[in-house]
């Protein structure tokens, strides 16, 4: 399944880039700088999506003691952290020409920064605690508590008077975005999603090999390699 996800992610990515960089028209207000949207928004969506996956699988791991679930959670964290970081940096690179500042303490930006720290906290707990079960419990609890931040991020542009613009796609009304710009955005979002599936599977497999390194199935598997 990993090669399928990887190949389709690459196809969607290339086609999305082509649509986004060559086909989509110039924005009447922001000129060409708006093209950052095609990496910024999918990265931000992934940062939220991966966090929810991580928290839900950590919860499943805690409640039903499913080891694979804990592995998925800890495999997701570094990927989620990198997408969060990407969303923040591309956002600030977009903010500089449009708002005149790389960073403002806007509710959307601040809550997204907290999300990055939640990922870092999870990863730190995972690697700081020697006993794997204790590590899963501690970091899982952090992940579950951190979920409150997800709706805060999403609704931050509604609840507070933010510099960051409101939702243009994820709302019940028609997206306030032209179809020629929406298509590349969605293509890139699908590409990022497929990319995550491919990477998280590889990472979960590594995690399983590492955690069961003293068990017979890993020994037999590795002996064959």
């Amino acid at each position, binding site marked *: 399944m990993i090669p399928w996800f990887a190949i389709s992610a690459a196809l969607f990515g290339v086609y999305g880039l082509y649509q986004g960089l060559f086909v989509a028209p110039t924005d009447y207000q922001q000129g*060409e700088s708006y093209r950052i949207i095609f990496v910024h928004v999918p990265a931000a969506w992934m940062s939220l999506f991966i966090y929810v996956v991580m928290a839900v699988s950590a919860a499943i791991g805690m409640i039903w003691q499913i080891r694979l679930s804990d592995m998925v959670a800890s495999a997701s964290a570094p990927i989620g952290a990198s997408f969060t970081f990407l969303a923040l940096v591309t956002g600030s690179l977009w903010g500089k020409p449009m708002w005149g500042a790389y960073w403002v303490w806007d509710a959307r930006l601040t809550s997204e920064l907290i999300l990055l720290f939640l990922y870092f906290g999870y990863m730190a707990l995972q690697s700081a605690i020697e006993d794997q079960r204790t590590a899963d419990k501690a970091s899982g609890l952090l992940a579950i508590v951190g979920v409150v931040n997800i709706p805060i991020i999403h609704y931050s542009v509604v609840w507070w008077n933010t510099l960051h613009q409101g939702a243009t796609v994820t709302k019940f009304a028609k997206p306030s975005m032209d179809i020629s710009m929406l298509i590349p955005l969605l293509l890139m979002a699908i590409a990022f999603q497929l990319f995550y599936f491919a990477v998280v599977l590889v990472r979960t497999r590594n995690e399983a090999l590492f955690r069961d390194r003293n068990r017979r199935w890993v020994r037999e598997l590795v002996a064959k390699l």
Partner: protein
Amino acid sequence: MNWAKFFDMGGYAFFVWTSYGLTFVLLVANVVSPILQRKKVIARVKRAIKREAMVVENQAVENRADKNRVTENQDTGNRAAENKTP
């Protein structure tokens, strides 16, 4: 299509291309790091297998040596017992 104009991005070249460049770098890092991680885990398990095999072998050698020593002792012990009996 004018390439110079395309790369200029209406004067926003630095912001747009830095964003895309960073995205590319992060995606590549996300592909490379789990591959390296996998290699590391496999190497670690292989080393462990080798080490354990060595331990088992050493133990076998030691056991054989112990056994020889025991039989030797028994031999000498028997001889000593023989010597005792007049």
